[in-house]
């Protein structure tokens, strides 16, 4: 018998274990069988049996008999059947012939080999002892491929069960042994292989025994501690069925693309023709041009072009001015048409209620003048133009030390057009005061918060100052509080005086192209010498806060100081004061001379008082307490006994001493008490109204009711007397009452706060 008819083998031998896959494989191919067999044993012994082994064992329990299996009795089974085995394969035909075309006859074909391949199955398993396996084991030891932990216990258990079935193993052993015999009985061509395999098998069995003994040794501890079985044997070989791949996918960073495109450089195009005559002509032209240029001055050309440009701009400006003027007239016309009734009220409205009130009057608010850009600034000065009765200048700045604006304005409004100022002059810090020249109504001088002064000519436009103080020495050290045009000098030079917190009164002369400044007086305090650093003496100065010139004697002026003193000074000399009035307890805000009697003046201060003084009399004639700081006080131009004052409470107080020596005849709140304060006031020279400025940049015009401007009626016997004489007489009569006080006795400061 040979391997050519292996299918009959199980039948002949009547082996009942035909179902085992292992054994079938063993029949099919010898080598494979050997390998498998040895492997299973090796693994079984080593305790690493896998699922196939387990299944094989399970199937052996339920034997399946083929239907056509013979039923043999015990005797028959026990009977020995002898079979003769010959080394010749009887199935091989020995007389096969093939026709040979070369020899022209049939020749014997060569014998086919004894090998019959029924199934070819390339194996992927490795023999434990093979070179490859050893290498893998070494590698795994190096790298370390431990078995997954949970499998250990299962494998151990299974192993023990397998070990318990010694019979199965024995059978298998027998079977392999028999296979080995078969192979050894096989063809001579397979001998070498077979020998090798036998060797291997031998080793395998040896190894198996060794492992079996090892397993037996381990059996007892393996039951109790299956996981601690020798770890070196737990290593599994890696093949295509047994490997584990682990991978993680990391996050890919999000991709983003950013691009920019730059602007390509600008391009132009140029073209031309180069011809000899072109070159020649160009040279000629250039040569002639240079000849000309050298003969007449080189920069003549450029100068003329500049000139023409200047001319053009000047023309445009002139044209603009022309249009501006037209628009102004138009605006004024529209305003007068719209507000016709109010416009008439200036002149013609008389409060009929005054006839029934004795000694009391009221004020009728007319327009509000404001300029957009000065809404948050304080009105710091109001002055009427001496030549144009309707035009008045309003200065905008700030009285608050901490809230100084970066700009200041001087706006000239006219009562004929309340919507927009006629002239706007902008300065780079708060404008604190201004004055309009009495003889040149276009000349305006302003004093700035930073101590500078500037003169503007309104005819030239308001953009550039005609004169500006320049330099550190040619300016006040501190805020300029009041500025007044002086009478022209002997040689006709125009000049003005300014007073500042730095304690100096300056005289500024308008020279040909600059301002010439001289110090008129420095307001040194009496007994005001204190120790300075390093043993030096410092003479204290008092800061001036207002200045007023005597209406008739133009060399004499009064200076109010921040200490509350009023100095009477002369421009002729600066060494001493003509008179010092201890006028107030706080800063003197404004002084005003009476329009009819220049010996009488009134002063107001932050100590709530308004005082009426007579020249060279140390004590005031009248004292009025207005209940809050008095910002401004002015005598009326029409009456010798009427003056008005504005307070921080937002009220206007109008006094007529002839009517009431103790109380104002009119107290009227013009702006809300809490939110706003009144700062300045001015009487119109011609019409019976006043303008008051407040802290919000608003100037309000108020019409005086008839009771506030009572004229003196001439006595019946002296009808020829004019109003001026009568007014003087009225004042004189009033003053005589006060003057009657004995010389030297002090008027008690008994004024009580006026309540409206």
């Amino acid at each position: 018998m040979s391997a050519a008819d292996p299918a009959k083998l199980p039948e002949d031998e009547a082996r009942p274990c035909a179902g085992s896959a292992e054994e079938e494989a063993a029949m099919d191919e010898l080598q494979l069988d050997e390998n498998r067999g040895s492997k299973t044993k090796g693994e079984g012994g080593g305790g690493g049996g896998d699922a196939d082994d387990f299944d094989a064992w399970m199937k052996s329990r339920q034997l399946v008999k083929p239907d056509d299996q013979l039923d043999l009795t015990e005797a028959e089974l026990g009977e020995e059947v002898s079979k003769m085995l010959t080394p010749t394969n009887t199935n091989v035909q020995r007389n096969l012939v093939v026709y040979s075309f070369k020899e022209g006859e049939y020749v014997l074909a060569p014998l086919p080999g004894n090998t019959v391949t029924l199934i070819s199955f390339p194996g992927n398993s490795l023999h434990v002892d093979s070179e490859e396996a050893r290498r893998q084991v070494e590698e795994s030891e190096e790298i370390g491929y431990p078995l997954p932990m949970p499998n250990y216990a299962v494998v151990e258990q299974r192993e023990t069960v397998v070990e318990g079935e010694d019979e199965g193993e024995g059978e298998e052993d027998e079977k392999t042994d028999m296979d080995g015999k078969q192979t050894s009985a096989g063809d001579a061509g397979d001998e070498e292989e077979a020998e090798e395999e036998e060797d291997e098998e031998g080793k395998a069995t040896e190894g198996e025994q060794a492992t079996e003994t090892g397993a037996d040794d381990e059996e007892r501890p393996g039951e109790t501690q299956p996981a601690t079985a020798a770890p070196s044997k737990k290593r599994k070989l890696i093949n295509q069925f047994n490997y584990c791949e682990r991978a993680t996918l990391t996050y890919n960073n999000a991709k983003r693309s950013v691009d920019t495109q730059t602007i390509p450089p600008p391009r132009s195009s140029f073209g031309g023709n180069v011809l000899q005559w072109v070159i020649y002509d160009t040279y000629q032209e250039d040569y002639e041009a240079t000849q000309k240029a050298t003969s007449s001055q080189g920069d003549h050309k450029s100068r003329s072009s500049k000139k023409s440009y200047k001319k053009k701009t000047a023309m445009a400006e002139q044209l603009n001015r022309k249009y501006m003027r037209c628009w102004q007239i138009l605006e004024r016309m529209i305003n007068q048409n719209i507000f016709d009734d109010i416009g008439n009220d200036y002149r013609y409205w008389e409060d009929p209620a005054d006839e029934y009130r004795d000694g009391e009057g009221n004020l009728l608010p007319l327009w509000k003048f404001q300029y957009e850009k000065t809404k948050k600034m304080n009105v710091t000065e109001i002055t009427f133009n001496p030549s144009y009765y309707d035009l008045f200048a309003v200065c905008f700045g700030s009285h608050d030390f901490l809230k100084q604006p970066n700009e200041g304005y001087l706006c000239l409004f006219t009562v004929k057009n309340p919507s927009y100022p006629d002239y706007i002059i902008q300065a780079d810090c708060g404008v604190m005061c201004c004055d309009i020249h009495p003889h040149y109504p276009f000349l305006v001088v302003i004093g700035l918060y930073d101590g500078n002064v500037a003169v503007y000519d309104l005819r030239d436009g308001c953009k550039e100052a005609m004169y500006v103080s320049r330099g550190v020495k040619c300016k006040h050290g501190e805020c300029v509080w009041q500025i007044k045009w002086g009478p022209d000098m002997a040689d006709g030079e125009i000049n003005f005086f300014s007073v500042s917190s730095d304690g100096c009164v300056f005289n500024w002369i308008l020279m040909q192209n600059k301002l010439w400044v001289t110090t008129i007086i420095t307001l040194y305090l009496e007994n005001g010498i204190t120790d300075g650093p390093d043993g030096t003496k410092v003479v204290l100065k008092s800061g001036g806060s207002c200045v007023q010139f005597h209406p008739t004697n133009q060399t004499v002026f009064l200076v109010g100081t921040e200490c509350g003193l009023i100095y009477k000074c002369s421009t002729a000399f600066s060494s001493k004061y003509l008179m010092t009035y201890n006028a107030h307890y706080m800063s003197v805000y404004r002084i005003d001379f009476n329009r009819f009697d220049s010996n009488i003046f009134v002063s107001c201060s932050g100590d709530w008082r308004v005082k009426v003084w007579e020249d060279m009399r140390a004590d005031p004639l009248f004292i009025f307490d207005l209940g809050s700081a008095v910002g401004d006080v002015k005598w009326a131009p029409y009456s010798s006994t009427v003056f008005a004052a504005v307070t921080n409470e937002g009220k206007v107080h109008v006094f007529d001493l002839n009517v009431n020596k103790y109380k104002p005849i009119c107290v009227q709140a013009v702006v809300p008490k809490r939110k706003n304060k009144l700062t300045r006031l001015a009487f119109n020279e011609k019409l019976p109204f006043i303008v008051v400025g407040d802290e919000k940049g608003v100037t309000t015009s108020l019409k005086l009711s008839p009771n506030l401007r009572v004229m003196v009626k001439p006595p019946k016997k002296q009808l020829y007397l004019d109003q001026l004489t009568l007014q003087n007489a009225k004042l004189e009569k009033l003053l005589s009452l006060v003057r009657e006080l004995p010389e030297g006795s002090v008027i008690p400061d008994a004024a009580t706060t006026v309540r409206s």
Partner: protein
Amino acid sequence: MGDEENVKEGDKKIVHIYPLVKHSDMKEEMRHEVVELSVSMCEKFSSNYELVAKMIKESMDKKFGIYWHVVVGEGFGFEVSYETENILYLFFGGNLAIVLWKCS
């Protein structure tokens, strides 16, 4: 008078050879430099315009960045577009025109 006119005629016949910038929108400083360079190159290789153009172009590329184009010749027409502030149209030597412009 007649004499003077004759003299003037004589003057006119003088061949001007100074460099004359016909057109340029370069900055003053750059123009001076370029004119100087062109003149020196023309004088150096007066017989070979091609070489002049090449040398000028190369040194311009080095000095003012690449993409310069230079034309040197006695008669030609051109119509070019250039990066603004980078053109010079120059006459030199009485019969030579040099156009330099930059355009990438």
